[in-house]
């Protein structure tokens, strides 16, 4: 067969297509122009292979790719230029690293000959990306494109997923090489799926069989491992109540009888307190984040801890465990379940109800059915949650809006929460929601944001306008950086240092972008306005005028144990 000689840019197009890429979030610039020139042909007409979504800021490209990846399970792809284009994506890259989201970011770079000369828009991208990526690599020759791209996707999506950055110097884009198809499905120094150990499975099962008060912590690992079914069989056979982490919220349906609520600083009262009462704690695909554990020295000291994780570096990193089950939970869960005896823990499960009832009375009902006063965040979330009946995707920003929407939204479908958990990136919500509409085009995407986070990515209204991306934007506007304001009131003598924020007229902003807009002030109009938003095709911005100094409760104060969680706050 005749040799086919192509440019590195063309090789990139073919390699991305081979990896199944359909959607690319990007922004052109000098050092990536040869690639964009090829992309021109592959995004239209008969040779169309990709949709390219032109964002308004490269950080948004990364967040959109994250949103896309989280709802679809596919790798999110970004294409940006060198220097500032590349560094702008890095907040999203770091976020993806923290939250185990598969991304491949391809950035232009100055030609190899100019590297190290402080050339225009040059940055040592591999150098700065290394600590926040699963892999970072510079493709210096067109011959290496097929290998590097295949390796990048293999690494990004296998094992514990994560972001990969490919730095692509201009000469490697324009120079030619013979096209040779390469498929990487093995890296000898990398074991993405550690082999399960029989004796460990047995020890875990024995502990669970003997447990009188077992409690499971469900994390995003269950979503990433597609182990939803295996999780339910495990929980149901041994009758184990479960709490879900922020990122694991849709790993177990909200209405499952064994779901006891959310974990964490603003999670459910029962799940936090019961952590300190259980006798066997089974952590499944979660990493004992400090937001979940509170002060680690007192965390679940009474319990035998079993930790299921695909990443052995997570074992004993934050909380020491007795039985480390290292491996893919898609396999480890059924392996343990097989050895479990059918059990019931009726009394133990019922004991959660006391705490749940306390939270219901003191927090939930006042949050979602307030009698008077300005609108509260919880009631807005509740109306949207009821109207979408657990079928929508929840995307949120960071702060109070994130905690409240995560608390009150309902999840009946897997891969339904897109949130910036570990990194807590304000400005994440809006672009991530754009990505989610492309990753899950058949589902309603609801994006809850505060006025602070919305303005950090407000330029993405341009992307939404251009793509007519059907993001249902719910702006919880309290004219404050609410979470920081809450902490200032609690811990800094009420000195509200630069947390009050002057807001623009969002009606005018929406109008400028041609996006339907409404404002909710009165709770009597709320249902109608939410219905109007959900029934309107395409994007919609619903601004809700929220009580200025609403606090999020329950709350475990920083430095406190999870059983010191408070239902009410004192100043």
């Amino acid at each position, binding site marked *: 067969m005749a040799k086919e000689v192509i440019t590195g840019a063309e090789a990139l197009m073919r390699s991305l297509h081979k990896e199944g890429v359909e959607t690319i979030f990007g922004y052109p610039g000098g050092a990536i122009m040869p690639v964009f020139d090829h992309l021109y042909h592959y995004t239209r007409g008969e040779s169309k292979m990709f949709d390219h979504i032109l964002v308004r800021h490269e950080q948004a490209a990364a967040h959109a790719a994250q949103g896309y990846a989280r709802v679809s399970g596919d790798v999110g792809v970004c294409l940006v230029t060198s220097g500032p284009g590349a560094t702008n994506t890095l907040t999203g890259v770091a976020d993806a690293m923290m939250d185990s989201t598969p991304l491949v970011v391809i950035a232009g770079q100055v030609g190899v000959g100019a590297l190290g000369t402080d050339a225009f828009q040059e940055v040592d991208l591999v*150098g700065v990306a290394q600590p926040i990526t699963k892999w970072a690599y510079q493709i210096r020759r067109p011959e290496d494109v097929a290998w590097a791209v295949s390796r990048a996707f293999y690494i990004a999506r296998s094992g514990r997923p994560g972001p990969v950055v490919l730095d692509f110097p201009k000469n490697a884009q324009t120079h030619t090489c013979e096209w040779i198809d390469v498929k990487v499905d093995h890296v*000898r120094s990398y074991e993405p799926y550690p082999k399960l150990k029989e004796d460990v499975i047995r020890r875990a099962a024995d502990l669970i069989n003997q447990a009188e008060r077992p409690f499971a912590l469900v994390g995003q690992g269950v979503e990433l491992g597609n182990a939803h079914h295996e999780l339910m069989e495990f929980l149901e056979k041994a009758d184990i109540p479960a709490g879900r982490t922020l990122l694991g919220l849709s790993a177990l349906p909200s209405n499952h009888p064994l779901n006891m609520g959310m974990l964490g600083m603003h999670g459910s009262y029962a799940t936090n307190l019961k952590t300190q009462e259980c006798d066997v704690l089974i952590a499944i695909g979660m990493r004992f984040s400090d937001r979940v554990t509170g002060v680690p020295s007192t965390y679940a000291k009474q319990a035998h801890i079993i930790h299921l994780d695909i990443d052995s570096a997570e074992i004993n990193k934050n909380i020491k465990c007795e039985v480390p089950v290292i491996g893919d939970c898609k396999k480890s869960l059924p392996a343990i379940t097989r050895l479990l005896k059918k059990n019931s823990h009726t009394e133990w499960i019922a004991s959660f109800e006391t705490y749940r009832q306390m939270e219901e009375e003191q927090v939930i009902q006042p949050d979602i059915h307030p009698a008077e006063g300005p609108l509260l965040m919880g009631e807005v979330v509740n109306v949207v949650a009821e109207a979408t009946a657990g079928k929508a995707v929840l995307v949120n920003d960071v702060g109070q809006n994130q905690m409240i929407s995560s608390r009150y939204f309902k999840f009946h479908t897997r891969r339904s929460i897109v949130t910036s958990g570990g990194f807590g990136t304000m400005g994440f919500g809006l672009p991530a929601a754009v990505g989610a509409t492309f990753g899950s085009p058949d589902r309603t995407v609801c994006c809850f944001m505060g006025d602070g986070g919305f303005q950090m990515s407000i330029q993405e209204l341009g992307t939404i306008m251009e793509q007519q991306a059907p993001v249902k934007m719910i702006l919880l506007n309290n004219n404050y950086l609410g979470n920081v304001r809450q902490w200032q009131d609690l811990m800094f003598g009420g000195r509200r240092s630069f947390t009050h924020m002057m807001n623009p007229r969002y009606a005018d902003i929406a109008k400028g972008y041609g996006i339907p807009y409404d404002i909710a002030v009165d709770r009597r109009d709320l249902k109608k306005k939410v219905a109007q938003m959900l029934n309107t095709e395409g994007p919609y911005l619903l601004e809700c005028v929220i009580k200025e100094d609403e606090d999020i409760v329950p709350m475990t104060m920083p430095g406190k144990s999870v059983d010191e969680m408070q239902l009410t706050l004192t100043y």
Partner: protein
Amino acid sequence: MDSNKKLYTLLVYSENIAGILNQITAVFTRRQVNIESLNVSASSIAGIHKYTITVWSDEEQIVKITKSIEKKIDVVKANYFLDDDLFIHEVALFKISTPVLMEHSEISRSIRKHDARMMEVNPTYATVLLAGLTEDIADLFNQLNEFGCLLQYTRSGRIAVTRSKEEMISDYLETQEKR
């Protein structure tokens, strides 16, 4: 220094790809752990590089550091050891003043006593090489320093081989290749 801390030696095997040293040292930087010594060389396996790193640490921390290093995609294996588990050596070069050397015969005796080798002697200076344990080298350094004859001094990082027969990763690589 924290009394729980011991001198650990990490042996890290990696692919021979640019930028790995950076990734490994970043693991220490992030935890504010000083690297005492570092040596990088080829291993007995083609294409595999070997890093010998010594740090003062406690066991809990060294386990986390080792795992974080091994997590890097192109790192094949990382293990930590205490001195008893290893055969250890270092090399030092001492450049000393020939006139002072001639003046004090104890200097020559000290060099011989340490089994150090005189590599070069000229009227101005002499170069002495000593291969041995950290303490031997420190001992000779202190003695030469006392005589005031030291012009230059340098010491290599620690190199070490394990008590196991082959490179610790030989079996691992074999199973990986079979996949």
